[in-house]
């Protein structure tokens, strides 16, 4: 087992790998009563088209999410919930664009819980009856999404940013996708992606890491897995330009919402790795659009906005920035934002202040077992490893570097979506 010391924040991540390729990451906190175990499969909703050697496969959208639902059935009459319930633990799962995550959260018997987490996720039992029963439930879940204006807003906006990317499709799939999903689709993606080499286990909280590693290795050694076929996700060709510059739609929002998205080809930032892109962008967005910015303050004081927020994502070959603004003034808002995009800056004082507060927040990150578990998952998914020198990276950031980044950052490729209330 390897101990990864997180420099400057006095925390340790334990790391090991099973002979079959399953990677294990652990963070121990003896002050808490609970543990949190997650098994992540690097297979999410954007893997609808993939290639094994030269053969191309295509599945309906939403299959990753469908599989997540039926995965809890261990046979025709037993679910993983039954097992965990008896142990007094809680279990759940979620599917994102990039991965599927299965969780168990408990206070006793960490070893038994973690082993059963592996057992039920790696179990290959599926039946037509189970799949048909689940369809009704997933359709109701999809309908809940249709009633949620924020889900509608997000996917409408992604649809306007991307011409062909899988990121524009609902994670649940549409009701038609759900209806046409078959047991063969489910088995195909399970056999292809649910391999230990394509999974990683993260355990955080109060437990003995040596006991967990030994039990996991013993469990994995007993199981046979077919050869991992290295499926390759087919990334659909995407236009550099946004799909639609401007659109207005009527949805069930109480007041007008404005979404402005920026699509930046990663090629234009080729001198920077993903970690630095995220660090620089977050600092810049905070300085220019956050609560401490003059821009937001002015918009509030002038009564142009009621609230605003932003998020950044890296989707395949594009960096996406999305602003959500609550304001009745669509033309003025679009105009002032477009102007601001051409005048991004950060003062030396602001740079120093944000740097200091980012370092302070590193201390706080390692406390809550669920938060730390998610943090580790994110680092593995984003960077393929634990970043053990974040404090050093922040400490060594130079003002001139961010100035250089601003010089090459092009925020002109935008898409604006106006969401008007239904009755106005």
């Amino acid at each position, binding site marked *: 087992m390897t101990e990864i010391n997180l420099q400057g924040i006095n925390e340790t991540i334990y790391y090991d790998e099973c002979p079959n390729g399953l990677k294990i990451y652990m963070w121990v906190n003896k*002050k808490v009563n609970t543990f949190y175990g997650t098994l992540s499969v690097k297979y999410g909703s954007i893997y609808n088209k993939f290639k094994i050697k030269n053969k191309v496969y295509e599945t309906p959208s939403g299959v990753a999410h469908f599989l997540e639902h039926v995965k809890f059935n261990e046979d025709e009459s037993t679910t993983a919930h039954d097992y965990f319930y*008896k142990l007094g633990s809680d279990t759940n799962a979620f599917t994102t664009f990039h991965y599927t995550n299965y969780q168990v959260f408990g206070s006793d018997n960490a070893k038994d819980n973690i082993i059963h987490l592996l057992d039920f996720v790696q179990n290959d039992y599926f039946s037509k009856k189970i799949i048909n029963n689940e369809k009704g439930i997933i359709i109701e879940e999809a309908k809940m999404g249709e009633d949620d204006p924020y889900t509608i807003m997000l996917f409408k906006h992604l649809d306007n940013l991307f011409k062909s990317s899988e990121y524009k499709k609902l994670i649940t799939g549409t009701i038609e996708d759900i209806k046409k999903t078959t047991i063969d689709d489910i088995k195909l993606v399970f056999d292809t992606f649910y391999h230990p080499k394509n999974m990683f286990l993260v355990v955080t909280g109060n437990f003995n890491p040596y006991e967990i590693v030994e039990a996991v290795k013993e469990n994995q050694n007993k199981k046979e897995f077919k050869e991992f076929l290295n499926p390759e996700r087919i990334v659909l060709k995407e236009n550099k330009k946004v799909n639609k510059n401007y659109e207005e739609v009527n949805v*069930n929002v109480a007041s007008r919402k404005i979404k402005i998205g920026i699509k930046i080809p990663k090629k234009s930032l080729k001198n920077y790795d993903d970690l630095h892109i995220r660090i620089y962008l977050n600092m810049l967005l905070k300085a220019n659009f956050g609560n401490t910015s003059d821009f937001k303050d002015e918009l509030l*004081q002038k009564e142009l906005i009621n609230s605003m927020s932003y998020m950044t994502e890296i989707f395949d070959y594009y960096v996406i920035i999305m602003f959500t603004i609550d304001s009745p003034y669509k033309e003025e808002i679009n105009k002032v934002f477009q102007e601001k995009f051409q005048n991004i800056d950060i003062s030396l004082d602001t740079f120093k202040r944000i740097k200091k507060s980012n370092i302070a*927040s590193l201390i706080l990150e*390692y406390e809550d077992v669920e938060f730390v578990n998610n943090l580790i998952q994110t680092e593995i998914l984003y960077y393929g490893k634990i970043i053990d020198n974040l404090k050093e990276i922040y400490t060594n950031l130079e003002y001139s570097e961010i100035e250089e980044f601003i010089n090459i950052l092009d925020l002109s490729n935008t898409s604006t979506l106006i969401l008007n209330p239904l009755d106005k």
Partner: protein
Amino acid sequence: MEYRKFDLNSYNIHTIKTDKFKTVRMEIIFSREVAKEEMPFFTFLCDLLTDTSKKYKTRKDIAIRLEELYKTVFYGVTNKAGNLFTTSFVLEFISPIFIEDASYLEEVIKFPFEFINKPRIKNREFDITSFNIVKRRMKEEIEGIKENALRLALINALNKMDQESPSATRVLGTIEDLDKITPSNLYDTYLELFNSNCDIFIIGNANMDKIVEIIKDNFKNRVIKLNKPKLLVNNKTRNKYQLVKDNSNFVQSTLVMIYNINNLDNYDKDINFHVFNYILGSGGITSKLYQKLRSENSLCYSVRSLYLKYDNLLVIEVSLDKSNVKLAEKLIRKCLKEMLKGEYSEEVVSDAKKNLIFSLKTGLDNNVSILNNYVFNYFANLPLIEERIKGIMNTNKEDLIRCSKAISLNTIYIQDAGDNND
């Protein structure tokens, strides 16, 4: 964990010392009984007081200072539990043991009192620019309720049950309530805030004696302590339940069933009813309601029962296809009948107890849960988490049947899906 109470004549400070967390959390709680007309005023005031002050004029000034204080978090929030209405100012900051700056603790503890003691007022009126910012934000929040099918259905259902009941009132109020608030009458509300009870709760790893001294130097509440507000709402019961239907534009229909909880003693309410509710519908996918409605009949994605202890109410809610509402109602009634007859095994009871104990143990890992437990221990004699765990261990089927017998149906509320969604 070490609990201490400091009686400072016009307010109390409750400290909970523990080295379990890296942050220290402080809640300054002004409490009074629910009064429908007052609550929107206090909610507005709470938002405005944390948005501007004499020293920190704008949200930007506040955000910069909080960043300087090592990412301290500060906000105001109003809440209602039964008949108790609270206006709270919350501060969460890194424990001083991690910070070398000697003046840090004093600077950070002083921060919220800067807002409570020195609001941005001129000629007995709040500053109009900040007032308007908060007004727009509150309007957005009130109108935003219409966007959420489940939330809207629950609010409407409680209103139909009894619009005069404190259980049906909302801390935000309505747009009409909001329009009654002015910079001038809000100043009266500010003065009235100090006619409330005041309790300050602090949890974390810090020198509590020093914190008490800093607070004493910075906060003089002018009113002598009042009696603690009464929490429990005794909602009226009905001989025969009422059925109410509303139309909506949502894709799914929402069914809400409200039950009164009658004549249970405090122990049953604090301990046994939680086990009853867990088996019925709060226990997630293994609960009776989930099994009947979701697993066996694929009617919904989720269904839950909500125990509103201080309102003496049990609420069951589910969103589903319009055509399945009748069947869902029938199945919910069937579940409750089975609960009444004790049609579940001893194993089910034992598993539910185990799971509830786990939930309570997770609360011991969370500073907000521990602090809340002390708050309700003080206001309502709610046993501490460790005592509740012991109590749940002793719950048996007889206790659960007694809980089943205590409920009676009051209102069935259906928020129908739009006509295009048949």
